[in-house]
């Protein structure tokens, strides 16, 4: 594969920013809303947005089963913020009927840092991403409260009241962050994911 095709789940959220970030690091990026469009991609990004809304639309437009099947078959998926919640096996402080994909063996807490007035920017050091700490933007963000034995913790909050909280993880071909690299113009995480898609192919 010379140019990997990477879809961005385009039911709701900051789809355009992810498409632009992926295109900027050499991927053929495109929005995906239908099962047929999913068939054409090598990897998938689940964007930031409102996880309750995305979770509902995934069911209404019959995207859950096709995505679960592709994940089981090894398709790389990256989720930011709401996307991390969608990739979590267990969600706290969500709606009782909220369901994610058959994804990462972890428990995440929604809106864990507080309401919008508590949203913040802070540096986060990421394992496997060179070039120094990542300037991370957290917006009504979740954090990870439990990880299973197969989950690698890539980053934690390093200052403030939430110090030590897990905000970036990887399990096999699944990658998830509490924060939004698509908003900062720093291409390293998207490049990392594109490499993951290349390697997985």
């Amino acid at each position, binding site marked *: 594969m010379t140019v990997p095709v990477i879809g961005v789940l385009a039911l709701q959220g900051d*789809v355009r920013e992810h498409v632009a970030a992926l295109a900027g690091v050499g991927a053929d990026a495109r929005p995906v809303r239908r099962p047929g469009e999913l068939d054409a991609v090598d990897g998938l990004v689940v964007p930031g*947005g409102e996880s309750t809304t995305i979770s509902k639309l995934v069911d209404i437009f019959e995207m859950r089963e096709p995505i679960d099947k592709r994940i089981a078959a090894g398709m790389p998926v990256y989720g930011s913020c709401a996307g991390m919640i969608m990739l979590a096996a267990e969600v706290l402080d969500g709606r009782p009927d909220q369901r994610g994909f058959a994804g990462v063996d972890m428990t995440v807490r929604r809106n864990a840092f507080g309401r919008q007035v508590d949203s913040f920017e802070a540096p986060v050091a990421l394992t496997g991403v060179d070039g120094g700490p990542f300037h991370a933007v957290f917006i009504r963000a979740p954090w990870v409260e439990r990880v299973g034995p197969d989950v690698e913790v890539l980053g934690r909050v390093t200052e403030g009241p939430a110090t030590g909280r897990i905000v970036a993880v990887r399990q096999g071909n699944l990658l998830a962050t509490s924060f939004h690299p698509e908003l900062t113009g720093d291409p390293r995480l998207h490049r990392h994911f594109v490499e993951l898609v290349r390697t997985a192919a």
Partner: protein
Amino acid sequence: MSESAAPTTATAVGTARVKRGMAEMLKGGVIMDVVTAEQAKIAEDAGAVAVMALERVPADIRAQGGVSRMSDPDMIDGIIQAVSIPVMAKARIGHFVEAQILQALGVDYVDESEVLTPADYANHIDKWAFTVPFVCGATNLGEALRRITEGAAMIRSKGEAGTGDVSNATTHMRQIRQEIRRLQSLPSDELYVAAKELQAPYELVKEVAEQGKLPVVLFTAGGIATPADAAMMMQLGAEGVFVGSGIFKSGNPAQRAAAIVKATTFHDDPDVLAKVSRGLGEAMVGINVDEIPQPHRLAERGW
């Protein structure tokens, strides 16, 4: 480190990026007016990305008249407790103390709204002074850029709220998009005069001319009553929609709310739109904007 977008500094809240970023997360979504915790739950169940907590929907404000103000904190708090999605609330234009109270209550976004009675006919709120982000209405590009200059982190094109008549929303969305396209077509030495004409700062005008879009998210509001209305506004370039009276003044709010959510996501797919438009029952009873006397038109508040 050369690729990092910003220097790694200490933790910061209330930055422009965090405020504008919050609106980016709402894109492609529907924000619904609610007056009770029960309505907020119905909205969340239907897939709303956020709710707007207010005491009376615009249709009732219009019918009942009088001075319209920020909602009762108890009522806002009840809605915050009832749902897990973001909660927005309205402050009067220029009423910075109402905004301070809303921030203290922990609302996620303040709408400095022409639907309420203005508190200041000269100045809008200095929105940079707040940690909570603001959304403001605009009928044209100059108005939108003045609000952004004052610190608005999100813009909604104004319609005529509480009417169920989408014509004003259409006019204002077309106007804003048309003025952006015009800026893109101008040679750089004409942008100075363009800024003067728009009554907006040159730097912002230049940014819009280069990017072909506002530096913040652009939603639409006012008069949206059907899935087709929402989809049309999306096709005209809105990045999401506010629905006020259109849902809870209709025959079957839960079903209509869900249909408008689906229509917003698949705004460019007529087959989906046809499917979701079926069997919704009565739409809200409309008022033609033309029949509303000039002094009672809400969209004309704000400057």
